């Protein structure tokens, strides 16, 4: 039974409001659902993320833990009250200027927490700023830009946009930045028709269990307000789904058996109160739990229960690469290093849980969801409903972080089933624990590797074996199995290589795509081995790397010759002064410090942009309407990483017009072409190139209409295009021209599919058309008695081909570093045990150090204006660099990520014993 409603009055942003609500209702729910103030976000409903931070009588509080009954007669301030008359407040301007909002889901909470501080302390110190923001989590920015913004509220915002032809390379402010700062941005949970029903998924409470479902009709009859209880018996289309075209193995709803905790069993649909009031235990489901198979050791053991009957030995798939003769080369090597490592499940921990709404429109399905992959979602939704792909429309909402975790289907399933069968709009927002239990994770890896080199420090061989825990279903397990063997050497010339991977099925939640697809895990092994080899050769770790890194014309482990855009050595060269200085400083520090020890470590990385040796085209379109409006049909999902800004920059320069006149339509599968997924660091490279081609196509059409030469200047004015070529000037009158269904009179189209050659059985081929390169240096301070590691600073250098937007690149690098730091030091998802942001720790504002970035531009001829990707590259080297630094500081080699204080302390004690 719920608590009786009461009338409550208080003020919100200065205006009196009264609501009729249960006094126990969370203030955030009243703000969002009763008062329509959706600027305040919900990330956990448990105080752990701070996304819901508002000011109550001037003090920051989590609105998810304030009973609205306590607000009676008090004053609430939300993000909506910050600016005046549509203008940004100085604090919001500072956020905009510093790129402090990426996806923007944490931004309202950050702003309110900062507001409390600035109200009492107008000129705070960095420490005060951090203390004030300590209770708000951000998964995108790495926090430093946010702190910079709070310390720079007096700054003025320069909003001038670059001239025609000068957009690429400009540190353009986020085009979609403002709504993220005012709270207007609409994320998955922020909007739905007022008459929407709510749905909730009843999930398996056990990791492995048989179950039977009783009389659902009777259950429904006993719960007025419940419109439907959907089970696997009610599926209109495919019973299984999955991200790959073949091998679909994920039940739409579980059928008598569950393979991981959190698997969907039933969908409840009804009014909000009814659906929320039903406890899982109330449902007629009879569970017979079985011992779950957790960890690759258990899954690969003799006689282990099979997670899937058709997957003997619990092996989903494997990857293999062989070049030269690794055994002979290792036998002949002057120095050999070997070791074993293990990593943990890592949760994406985007601050926005999965959410959305859907409705049936005639015989079509329309779905508004937070997603990284609208077209892939469209095809999967069509399959589970048994309808044509064209009959599904995916309209993505703003995405509050993805990092690979919002590629797979999540809320799509209940929304599609419920809206389709009931023909009513339906909405859903996942709670944090169910999001964490049901969504994909980074694969834990158990890895063994051996590397060899000659006495003068030239790498001769690498052998790598990795078992990757892929959880209960395929998801992107095969991608990890494929990508790791290609990348396991790191960006070095290694003539003899043998890499083997296995994706192992267990009863954990599915491991899928997560920034780097297994490469960050693998690089922990190879980079540590190279440090050891350097030591054996008497070489400095950076010099050892310089000796071995791949350069122009170098051959990769897959036999690919890299002709262009290989700025790896430059990344090391540019950081060498810092390296030399900080290594010496650490040594000097340690001479006078017994307990605290400092160390400096380094790691290189490379990462192929795009899918591995299979097609992955993008198509982009840009049109001009009869009245002269330019529209970029931008099918690239912006999940905070910036394509809503970068694609227009590329488009503007391709056409030769200023970027600020380009309007956009974002990722609506009815209106934009398929630009593929926002994954695999492919969007800047692949869709960026498609955008350039579309812009150039439009430019060519305009020049042809005007009958002028290639160098002509284009100016678009209302209803006309003015083209000037030397002294000649032509005007194209758009108003009389025929329009297409979108109202465009001219349309430029571009499609790009990076050229690759599929890998053969030995992993030889051209898996990627281009690679991103980079390196990071980490300086740490280890408390050797407690085992705590404080990262003091990160230096990061990247060859990005061409820096389309240096500010956004900086932001991506910061965010990747923060996630890499989390992987290295604290993040460990344990199925059934750490399903919230209280027990599962991600870095807070106090954990991310200053980051100094260096951008190298070795142009990639295939990329847009020479550019390539950064999204995943930014994270990959951080863990290995931190582990190298811990070793430098203490002599302890971390073999188990995360290096929690307990593990670091144990490793230090072990060095003293042996």
């Amino acid at each position, binding site marked *: 039974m719920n608590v*009786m409603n009461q009338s409550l009055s208080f003020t919100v942003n200065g205006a009196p409001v009264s609501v009729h609500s249960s006094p126990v209702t969370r203030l955030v729910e009243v703000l969002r659902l009763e008062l329509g103030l959706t600027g305040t976000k919900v990330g956990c409903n448990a*105080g752990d993320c701070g996304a819901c*931070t508002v000011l109550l009588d001037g003090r920051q509080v989590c609105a998810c*833990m*304030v009973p609205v009954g306590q607000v009676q007669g008090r004053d609430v301030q939300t993000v909506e009250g910050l600016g005046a008359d549509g203008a940004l407040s100085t604090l919001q301007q500072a956020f905009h200027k510093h790129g402090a909002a990426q996806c923007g889901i944490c931004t309202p909470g950050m702003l309110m*927490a900062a507001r409390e501080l600035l109200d009492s302390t107008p000129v705070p110190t960095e420490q005060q700023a951090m203390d004030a923001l300590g209770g708000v989590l951000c998964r995108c920015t790495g926090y430093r830009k946010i702190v910079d913004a709070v310390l720079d509220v007096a700054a003025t915002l320069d909003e001038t946009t670059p001239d025609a032809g000068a957009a690429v390379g400009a540190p353009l402010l986020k085009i979609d930045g403002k709504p993220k700062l005012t709270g207007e941005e609409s994320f998955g949970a922020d909007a739905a028709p007022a008459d929407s029903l709510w749905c909730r998924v009843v999930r398996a409470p056990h990791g492995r269990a048989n179950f039977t479902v009783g009389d659902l009709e009777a259950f429904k009859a006993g719960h007025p307000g419940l419109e439907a209880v959907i089970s696997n018996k009610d599926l209109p289309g495919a019973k299984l789904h999955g991200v790959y075209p073949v091998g679909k193995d994920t039940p739409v709803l579980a059928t008598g058996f569950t393979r991981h905790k959190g698997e969907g069993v039933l969908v409840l649909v009804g009014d909000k109160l009814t659906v929320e009031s039903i406890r899982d235990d109330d449902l007629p489901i009879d569970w017979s739990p079985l011992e779950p198979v957790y960890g690759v050791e258990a899954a690969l053991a003799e006689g282990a229960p099979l997670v899937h009957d058709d997957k003997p030995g619990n092996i989903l798939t494997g990857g293999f690469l062989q070049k030269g003769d690794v055994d002979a080369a290792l036998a002949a090597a002057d120095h050999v290093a070997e070791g074993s490592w293990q990593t943990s499940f890592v949760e994406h921990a985007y601050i926005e849980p999965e959410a959305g709404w859907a409705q049936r429109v005639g015989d079509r399905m329309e779905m508004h969801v937070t997603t990284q992959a609208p077209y892939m979602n469209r095809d999967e939704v069509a399959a589970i409903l048994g309808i044509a792909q064209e009959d599904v429309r995916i309209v993505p909402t703003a995405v509050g972080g993805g990092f690979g975790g919002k590629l797979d289907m999540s809320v799509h399933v209940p929304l599609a089933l419920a809206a389709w069968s009931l023909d009513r709009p339906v909405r859903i927002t996942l709670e944090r*624990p169910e999001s964490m239990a049901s969504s994909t994770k980074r694969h834990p890896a158990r890895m063994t590797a051996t590397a060899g080199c000659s006495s003068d420090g030239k790498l001769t061989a690498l052998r790598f074996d990795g078992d990757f825990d892929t959880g209960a279903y395929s998801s992107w397990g095969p991608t990890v199995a494929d990508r790791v063997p290609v990348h396991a050497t790191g960006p070095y010339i290694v003539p003899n290589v043998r890499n083997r991977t296995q994706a192992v099925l267990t009863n954990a939640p599915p491991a899928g795509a997560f920034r780097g697809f297994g490469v960050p895990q693998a690089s922990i092994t190879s980079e540590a081995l190279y440090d050891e080899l350097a030591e054996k050769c008497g070489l400095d770790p950076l010099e050892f790397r310089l000796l071995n890194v791949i350069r122009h014309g170098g051959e990769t482990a897959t036999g690919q010759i890299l002709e262009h855009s290989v700025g790896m050595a430059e990344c090391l060269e540019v950081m060498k002064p810092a390296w030399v200085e900080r290594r010496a400083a650490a040594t000097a520090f340690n001479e006078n410090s017994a307990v605290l020890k400092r160390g400096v470590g380094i790691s290189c990385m490379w990462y192929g942009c795009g899918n591995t040796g299979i097609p992955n085209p993008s198509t982009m379109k840009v049109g001009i309407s009869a009245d002269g409006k330019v529209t970029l049909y931008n099918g690239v999902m912006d999940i905070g990483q910036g394509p809503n800004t970068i694609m227009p920059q590329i488009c503007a320069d391709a056409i030769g017009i200023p970027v600020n006149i380009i309007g956009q339509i974002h990722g609506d599968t009815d209106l934009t072409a398929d630009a593929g997924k926002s994954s695999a660091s492919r969007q800047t490279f692949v869709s960026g190139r498609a955008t350039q081609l579309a812009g150039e196509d439009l430019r060519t059409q305009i020049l042809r209409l005007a009958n002028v030469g290639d160098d002509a200047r284009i100016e678009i004015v209302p209803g006309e295009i003015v083209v000037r070529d030397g002294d000649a000037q032509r005007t194209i009158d758009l108003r009389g021209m025929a329009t297409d269904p979108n109202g465009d009179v001219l349309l430029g189209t571009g499609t790009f599919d990076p050229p690759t050659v599929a890998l053969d059985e030995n992993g030889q081929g051209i898996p990627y058309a281009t690679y991103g390169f980079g390196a990071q240096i980490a300086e740490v301070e280890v408390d050797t008695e407690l085992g705590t590691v404080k990262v003091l600073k990160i230096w990061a250098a990247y060859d990005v081909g061409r820096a389309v937007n240096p500010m956004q690149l900086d932001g991506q690098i910061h965010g990747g570093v923060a996630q890499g730091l989390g992987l290295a030091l604290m993040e460990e998802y344990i199925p059934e045990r750490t399903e919230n942001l209280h027990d599962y720790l991600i870095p807070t*504002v106090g954990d991310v150090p200053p980051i100094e970035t260096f951008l190298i531009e070795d142009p990639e001829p295939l990329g847009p204006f020479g550019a390539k990707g950064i999204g995943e590259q930014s994270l990959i080297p951080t863990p290995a660099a931190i582990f190298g630094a811990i070793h430098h500081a203490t002599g302890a080699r971390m073999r188990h990520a995360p290096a929690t204080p307990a593990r670091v302390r144990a490793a230090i004690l072990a060095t003293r014993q042996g």
Partner: protein
Amino acid sequence: MAQYVRPESLEEALALLADAPLTILAGGTDYYPARVGKPLDDDLLDITGIDGLRGISDGGDGWRIGATTTWTDVIEADLPPLFDGLKLAAREVGGVQIQNVGTLAGNLCNASPAADGVPPLLSLDAEVELAGPDGARRLPLGEFVLGNRETARQADELLTALHIPKAADDAVSSFLKLGARKYLVISIAMVAVVIEPADGAVGSARVAVGSCSAVAQRLPDVEAALKGQPLDASLGQQITQDHLTGAISPISDVRGSADYRFDVAATLVRRALGALGAGGQGQLETAA
């Protein structure tokens, strides 16, 4: 229908509590996280509207901390160095949002083994005041928190205040917390110390360790060993794990093994003592 009451007087609250079992709600920072995705259908007694329950007052023989006093109230209160440890703990409870609404009393009643309030309050010799239908009673904190999520509170009682006895004017205190990240973190171990000096040496010491047993514990062996020791940077350096053995019984969990907890608890004790001896507080901080 479940009920929600928010009385303005203690008498009213106690009468309601005597009438029917009610869940007490203060800052809600333990209440709401325990109900994510679950219906909010408890019968609730919200005590935050009760007059006179919030605030810290000096009654001459000691301080009274009212039940709805928040962590921020403690941080902002004008209190002698005896309370430095409690203030340090307050600054490390969650983030500022938690400190602004979370109460000390809620922290004690919730009785988590990792409750950051318990060690400093144990080291302050705090007593708990409970009011019920038959009047009020006082219990030493150590007799109030009985186990993981278990207290001596009767269902019809309300924790109305904490009482901190006066200590020597020159008493000093500290608190050290170990967690796996900077903010918003559950303690792996934490230590609170109060020292009353006497002639440049330790007159008396009260040391408590949390997160290393079901309930935070005072360390009698350590306290005895410290008596009469010179009050300088060497203070406590002779303390080893052996001094802790009888008092704490750590478990192994995701945050660390039992051995590790013994090890770091002893380190934290030594650090807090050494720093107090040297006139500081014990965080090892170096400039970057």
